[in-house]
């Protein structure tokens, strides 16, 4: 196995290849993890490029493949990519809003060998769902969820939770039961990309979380063996960070629509990365030898408090993107950790939200919806600083 820099440990192969096929999306969810500057990255990899990426990653040992975006259904070559991925031996996951799909396409994907479809919902009611999505989507999502089941796929329903829909966890799980979901992912909002801009709109209160946890446990008990429910406490409410992505360059390989290779889908924003492109380098080189994928691999990059922490192997210092966004330095400890000198800012944020939730001061702040117009606006406003 090739090694690079001071990293002399054996590098395990990537297991997960996430193909972000496009940043185009008919939805405008304000918690989207895509970069806010997405309007700058309009060029998309060709079908041939994606096929080469899949072949190389599969050869290295990747088994799980996710097609996401943006909305991957906007790619007219999706059927072709699925067929190639399945023929290579990947377990193929389509991560979609359901918009851009009809029953005919659901059937065509099955024929191409698609293993699983994850349909996202924004809420359990049409009103709230469509408000958050920024478009009328709910009825079509219901229809697509039924089509997914009808065509024999395992179905994961994904609900991204935040302050606006967290009070409705019971209704959300009831909906999942009605739709006969096999798995439900109650995903917690991660505050990157658009979500970071909309933190005040999204961060839940402690009371909401306590209620969501109780309701989820009740359903987990009740549906044991029938429906798996995944629920994770948002890390802003913890005092130890998560082992983000199971480690930098350990399992996950994300390819952006324009062909950059990233150790996680939020890493594009980190300063000091070279952002290697699959159009210039092999997946093997990117994974094993590129400076980016070795930058935070293992433990050598750490400084205190992580460096001397007895728990460093457990969480690997948490999330690099969160460390950068909240402290300005990606090599700092994730400030979710109570050992971080920046931890108090996280505690303060949560307390502020708890105090102000329900008041006009917080609830009437403008929400930045994820769309190309807003992205262009952000780019325009940022431009003078970078000149």
């Amino acid at each position, binding site marked *: 196995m090739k090694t690079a820099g001071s990293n002399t440990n054996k590098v395990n192969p990537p297991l997960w290849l996430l193909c972000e096929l496009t940043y185009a999306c008919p939805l405008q969810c304000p918690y989207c993890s895509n970069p806010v500057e997405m309007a700058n990255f309009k060029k998309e990899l060709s079908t041939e490029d994606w096929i080469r990426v899949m072949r190389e990653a599969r050869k290295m040992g990747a*088994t*799980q493949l996710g097609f996401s975006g943006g909305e991957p259904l906007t790619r007219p070559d999706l059927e072709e990519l699925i067929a190639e991925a399945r023929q290579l031996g990947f377990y193929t996951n389509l991560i979609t809003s359901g918009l851009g799909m009809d029953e005919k396409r659901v059937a065509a994907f099955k024929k191409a060998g698609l*293993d699983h479809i994850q349909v996202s919902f924004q809420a359990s009611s049409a009103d709230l769902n469509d408000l958050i999505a920024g478009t009328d989507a709910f009825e079509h999502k219901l229809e697509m969820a039924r089509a997914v089941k009808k065509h024999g796929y*395992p179905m994961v329903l994904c609900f991204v939770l935040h302050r606006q829909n967290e009070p409705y966890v019971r209704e959300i799980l009831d909906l999942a039961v009605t739709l006969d979901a096999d*798995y439900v992912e109650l995903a917690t909002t991660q505050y990157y990309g658009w979500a970071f801009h909309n933190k005040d709109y999204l961060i839940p209160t402690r009371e909401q979380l306590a209620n969501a946890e109780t309701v989820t446990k009740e359903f987990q008990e009740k549906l044991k*063996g*029938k*429906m*798996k429910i995944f629920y994770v406490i948002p890390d802003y409410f913890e005092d130890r960070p998560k082992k983000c992505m199971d480690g930098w360059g350990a399992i996950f390989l994300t390819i952006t629509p324009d062909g950059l290779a990233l150790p996680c889908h939020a890493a594009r924003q980190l300063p000091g990365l070279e952002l290697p492109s699959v159009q210039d380098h092999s997946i093997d080189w990117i994974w094993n030898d590129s400076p980016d994928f070795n930058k935070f691999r293992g433990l050598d990059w750490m400084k205190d408090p992580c460096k001397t922490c007895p728990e460093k192997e457990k969480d690997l210092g948490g999330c690099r993107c969160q460390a950068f966004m909240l402290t300005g330095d990606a090599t700092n400890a994730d400030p979710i950790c109570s050992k971080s000198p920046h931890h108090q800012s996280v505690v303060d944020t949560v307390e502020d939200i708890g105090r102000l939730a329900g008041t006009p001061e917080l609830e009437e702040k403008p929400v930045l919806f994820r769309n190309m117009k807003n992205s262009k606006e952000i780019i325009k406003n940022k431009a003078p600083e970078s000149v």
Partner: protein
Amino acid sequence: MLNDDVDEKLTSEVVPTIANSHRFQWEEVQNCHVILYPEGMVKLGDSSAEILKLCDGKNDVTAITNILQQQYPDAELDNDIKKFLEVAHENGWIKYK
């Protein structure tokens, strides 16, 4: 849902089959058999893989036990096989027919 047959008990006549939502395959790089399912993978030991290879929708538990007992005549396999199948069923890897 994952297991429509959730209340079913493992008996000798049950025919265990890999669940539709799951794939069982050999992985060259990992040098082992794996179970793949939505967004996840479990690596399998040799004996687990030997049992799952026989979960092809044709063999009932008695047949699986007999086939493996012939291959490994010195081992006491009956209980191990049943225990593994129960765990595999609980995890949703296999269905009982």
